[in-house]
């Protein structure tokens, strides 16, 4: 009787428990949470490259943005 109980209840529960703890909780859920943090840091690092300090490049980006804005306005009638 004890052996049957061990095999059909105790062991599966222990197995599920260890799976949930190691894989789902640590990797999946916590990985997602930490991933959000890492994503923010990564995009911050990329955006930092834009801050070159050269006025010329800022003006260029501004012009591109203005052109994009006009194109956007042209096609999307508000």
């Amino acid at each position, binding site marked *: 009787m004890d052996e049957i109980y061990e095999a059909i209840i105790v062991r599966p529960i222990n197995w599920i428990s260890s799976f949930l703890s*190691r894989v789902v909780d640590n990797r999946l*859920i916590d990985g997602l949470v930490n991933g959000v943090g890492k994503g923010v840091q990564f995009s911050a690092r990329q955006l930092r490259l834009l801050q070159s300090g050269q006025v010329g490049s800022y003006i260029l980006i501004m012009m591109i943005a203005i052109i994009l804005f006009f194109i956007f306005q042209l096609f999307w009638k508000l």
Partner: protein
Amino acid sequence: MFAAFDNFPALLIWLPLAGGLISFFIKSEKAARASAIVFSLLTMAVMMTSLFFSSSESFVYNQVSYVWLPNLGSSFGLILDGLTRVLCLLTALVFPMVFLLVPGNRYPNANRFYALMLLTQCGLMGVFMATDALVFYLFWELALIPVYFLASIWGGEKRIKATFKFFIYTFVGSLFLLIGILYMYLKTSNGSFSLVAFYNVKLSDVEQYWMFLLFFIAFAIKMPLFPLHTWQPEAYEQAPTPVTMVLSAVMVKMGLFGLLRWLLPLFPLAVKQFNTAIIVVIVVGMVYASLVAIYQDNIKKLIAYSSIAHIGLMAAGAFTLKAVALNGAVLQMFSHGINIMALWIVADLIETQTGITKISALGGIAKKAPKLTMFLVIAAFANIALPLTNAFVGEFMIFNGLYQFKPWIAAFAGLSIIFSAVYTLNMIKHVFYGEVVAAVEGYLDINKTQAMVLTVITGLILFVGIYPDPFFKMMYETVGLIVNRYVTI
């Protein structure tokens, strides 16, 4: 006749605040500890006294309101009603116990440690008593910031990472809450932050759904509910144990309290719309957390996951909107605070003496410390919610409500109770019984102060378990008001 009793809420804020500010300037560690104990005991005395003075027949017992920011429509409003009393009583009880247990020389710069702890108490009291959304938000943050410093200065090895995560996580939640509060403020007829004005705001269905989401995220992170819980085990493990006690006994109740005072009464349409789905997620989370707890080999993480499961049950009870479950949830908020205190005390005593938190590395403490074992076993039974313990009453009522809501949900939630017996009894078996391991060889039993605190806790466990009526008398009117908001829609 006793005109001063409307000042009780104010005193509960000012006493810890004053104590905290004074502690910063006390140089000696002993004096800092003594002053912290005195101030926390004074706060407790005020709280206890306030229980005997009710100012009116209505649900409001004591209320004050100071002019604060009249141009913004915010006043410094505090209230002690049934719901608040239960939580303030818990806050007032936990802090003196924590201070009594911590030896004065345990933390360097003890004066700052005690000061920050008292500021946390001030913040917690404010959160529970605020009747003004801006004041509520202010104290919500005030309770968080000292904990950040406490955990990142005096915490364990990986404290910086754990504390940072905890802070960012809860702060993101707080910002959602702030946006929600601002939207509600702009919707009030006379531009006011008061709770009453918020209650009278008429929102469309869609507006309620969005507002519900903003408030709910903040509260769900704080409790925490699955799957927003991953800050908790790390924070509990890394924070110094006195801070963990405050975090788990009182602070997570901020989220539950937010549900009862703000979310449920403010957005009834949205709650009605979402509650079944939310209860299902919560109950899955409870079973999940209980299963994960079985696997844990670290006492602190085990208690953390056990706490997630128990808090989930209270939140599920609140969302059933049944009076019996809501009353049970409020009582359980108090009981859970007391029980988890006891578990942390035991975990801390074991860690300070042996330096071990691994369950598999311990064994045989019962032979060396019979008194400690007796207290632990009672607390552990309360954690499993056996009859005659405080948790039985609350959890029984919550299950009653869940069953009325949907029987199959109650049945599934019952699994988490069974699992809680598995991991709690397993922990007792490995840590306290079996062969005496080398690390436990010279283990000393509890001293007088520890015995006194644990006796108080055990007394509360049994008192609430056998005679919970005074608590229900205190809270049922206030809880009834929440339920009544759902009768008319």
